[in-house]
């Protein structure tokens, strides 16, 4: 077991997108609960938000291995 500060930063960087993705899907669930017929439109938008939030962590992951 060895590592460096990169991995601590990687763990810290997972917090933000984690919270963001939780909020996005909370909003999606309450939206579908209010208006079930809009589920398809909402799902596409939610996936888009999920992906944009996730990109932050993924970029950090790539950089943590590169540097």
């Amino acid at each position, binding site marked *: *077991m060895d590592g460096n500060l990169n991995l601590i930063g990687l763990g810290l960087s997972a917090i933000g997108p984690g919270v963001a993705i939780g909020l996005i899907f909370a909003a999606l669930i309450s939206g579908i609960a209010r208006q079930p017929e809009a589920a*398809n439109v909402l799902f*596409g938008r939610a*996936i*888009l938000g999920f*992906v944009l939030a*996730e*990109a932050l*962590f*993924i*970029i950090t*992951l*790539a950089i943590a*291995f590169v540097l």
Partner: protein
Amino acid sequence: MSVTAAEEFIAPGPGLFELPPIVWEITKPMVLLTLSAVIVIGVMHLASRQAAVVPGRLQFAGEQAYDFVRNSIARDNIGADHYMKFVPYLFGLFMFIIINNYYGIVPLLQFPTFSRIGYIIPMALVSWLVFIGAGMWRHGALGYFKHATVPSGVPPWILVLLVPLEFLSNIVVRPFTLTLRLFGNMFAGHLLLALFATGGAYLLTSGNVLYAATGVLAFVMGVLVGFLEIIVMFLQAYVFTLLSAMYIGEAIAEDH
């Protein structure tokens, strides 16, 4: 992979993706990529060969996939006027990425091609060229750059700040994020599966009963992560195609 208890556990790292050439300069991902093209073309040819009014099983599956890309990705994001021009590209992209991702969980292949970043960069560049080309076809070259970088309805003094930012976010950064998102997901997923598998094997063969029980838990977690990967692999193919479609739709949208 036989690990004796005396050995120290070496966790799999980025070196896991450095595969030796099979013959000459040809590596496993190259073979898989070529195979994926053959699979996509072959399966789609078989599915569309009959073109019966009452579809068989394969034709039905092909039509389902095509309908999904055509309606819920292309039409909803590009708009009903021009979406058919881009459906062939988007459908090919979707099938290509999804086949290459699912290599990661097929026994014996077990290597997602797109965990090597070099295979994604050309694909992202093609998507980039397609949406910029679509915008130029719609608005003309200068018209497209104005459309993409100058937001309407803001005072002129703030444009000095906004135009470079819009240029950066709409034109420069997009291929990078497309590439890194797919690469990072495939890379991390494959690494995670390898970590659970090797770690579980190491714990099982360590000779300590409690460690062995933990090793069984590690294998169970590996299986669960495998199911998660099934979702992620589909999602990444969907998202890559969706974002390509959204960029095209934004590029050919009318000015407000």
